[in-house]
């Protein structure tokens, strides 16, 4: 172990990595916003009494949950354009794959949350004369969001980690810049370790928050 570390080169490469980090965030935030919103409607579809609605939603959710994200990314970049006849940029393909993947996972979180709300809540709200969408909006959703907050935070963390796969479609995000720099300087050890640490700094606060939320909820019972 007499390897000479050269962290000096990080001074030059750090700005590049930060630019990559900016792209990572541009992928991450829209994916979770779009994924969570779409996930809500998927959960409603999955819970629907009509089978014409619930079975396709179930199929969609299971398809995304039972295949590797890498395939989804590659499928949306190489295969999907053939179906629609429009070439997608790597960034758009990555956004699409990450967003739809998130929607499938968050649909299951919403469904779990909605099903966990006691029946009396629905009946009480109905008895007060609320229409179904008012019951959802005023009574059910606020409770689901609160109860499922740790699960949503965990999902957001997973999406941040998944976004590194966009480097395979050569989206210029953090991992891509790291791979590029490490092969340019022949210094994989320093660069890749730094990349790992940047991801850690990005992701750990969310992870810590979700742990604290879970502890608080557990102590409340």
């Amino acid at each position, binding site marked *: *172990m007499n*390897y000479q570390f050269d962290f000096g080169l990080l001074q030059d490469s750090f700005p590049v990595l930060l630019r990559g980090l900016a792209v990572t965030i541009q992928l991450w935030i829209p994916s979770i916003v779009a994924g969570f919103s779409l996930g809500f409607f998927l959960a409603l579809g999955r819970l629907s009494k009509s089978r014409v609605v619930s079975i396709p939603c179930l199929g969609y959710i*299971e*398809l995304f949950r*039972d*295949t*590797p*994200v*890498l*395939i*989804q990314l*590659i*499928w949306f970049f*190489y*295969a999907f354009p*053939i*179906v629609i*006849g429009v070439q997608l940029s790597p960034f758009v393909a990555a956004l699409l794959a990450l967003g739809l993947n998130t929607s499938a996972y968050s649909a299951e979180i919403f469904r779990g949350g909605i099903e966990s709300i006691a029946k009396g809540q629905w009946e009480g709200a109905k008895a007060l004369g609320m229409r179904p969408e008012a019951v959802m909006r005023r009574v059910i959703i606020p409770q689901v969001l609160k109860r499922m907050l740790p699960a949503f935070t965990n999902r957001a*963390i997973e999406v*941040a*980690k*998944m*976004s*590194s*796969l966009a*480097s*395979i479609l050569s989206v210029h995000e953090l*991992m891509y810049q*790291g*791979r590029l720099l*490490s092969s340019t300087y022949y210094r*994989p*050890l320093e660069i*890749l*370790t730094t*990349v*790992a640490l940047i*991801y*850690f700094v990005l*992701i*750990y606060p969310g*992870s810590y928050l979700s742990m604290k939320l879970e502890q608080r909820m557990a102590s409340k019972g």
Partner: protein
Amino acid sequence: MSYQWDFAPVLARSNLLVTGLVNTIEIALISIVLGVILGLILAFMRLAQRRMLSYPATALIEFYRNTPPLVHFFWFFYALPVLANISLNPFVAAVLALSTQSGAFYAEVFRGGIVSIERAQWEGAKALGMKRSQLMRRIILPQALTRMFPPFVERSFELTKTTALASTLAYADLMYQAMIVNSETFRPLEVYTTIALMYVILLVSASTLARLAEIRMTAYR
């Protein structure tokens, strides 16, 4: 949608894809076994009263849980050989990355199962004069095992999906074989759809087996 689907060239190369599937299952099983061993060690270290043991375990677990798996794959393949002055083939690097990462997650599964056992069980066993090792083996672990089972299965599925990343190191798993078939046939839509379905079949049959095993494990209740 005037595209003509043609699976014939893909099916003609199905032996390549089957090889890939076998390699995927192989790397997943080896990594699960190594991950479980590492996870057990980390879980007991983290539960230890001595800080010398618990702090490093916590740091390692948190680091691996909060950084993307792709970074670990590249780190083990490109950075570790520089540090340790060895060279790794893609298979070994991928197994190292997968088993350390899943070891960190398994450790949390095991720890969660052990701490979830009620205090009275620990106290009762102690009152009967059992040593810590006896108490663990006879009282705590048998109960914790059934509780750990569902999250353990979920983690193993995540690991199986993560094996697709080994393709980025040119390990001949299902994903990598699909890329080869794609470059021979120029049929990305058919190829990637086929392997996505192969992953679905693999994971759905594994989850059916897991459900049967869970029913047997909890049959005593």
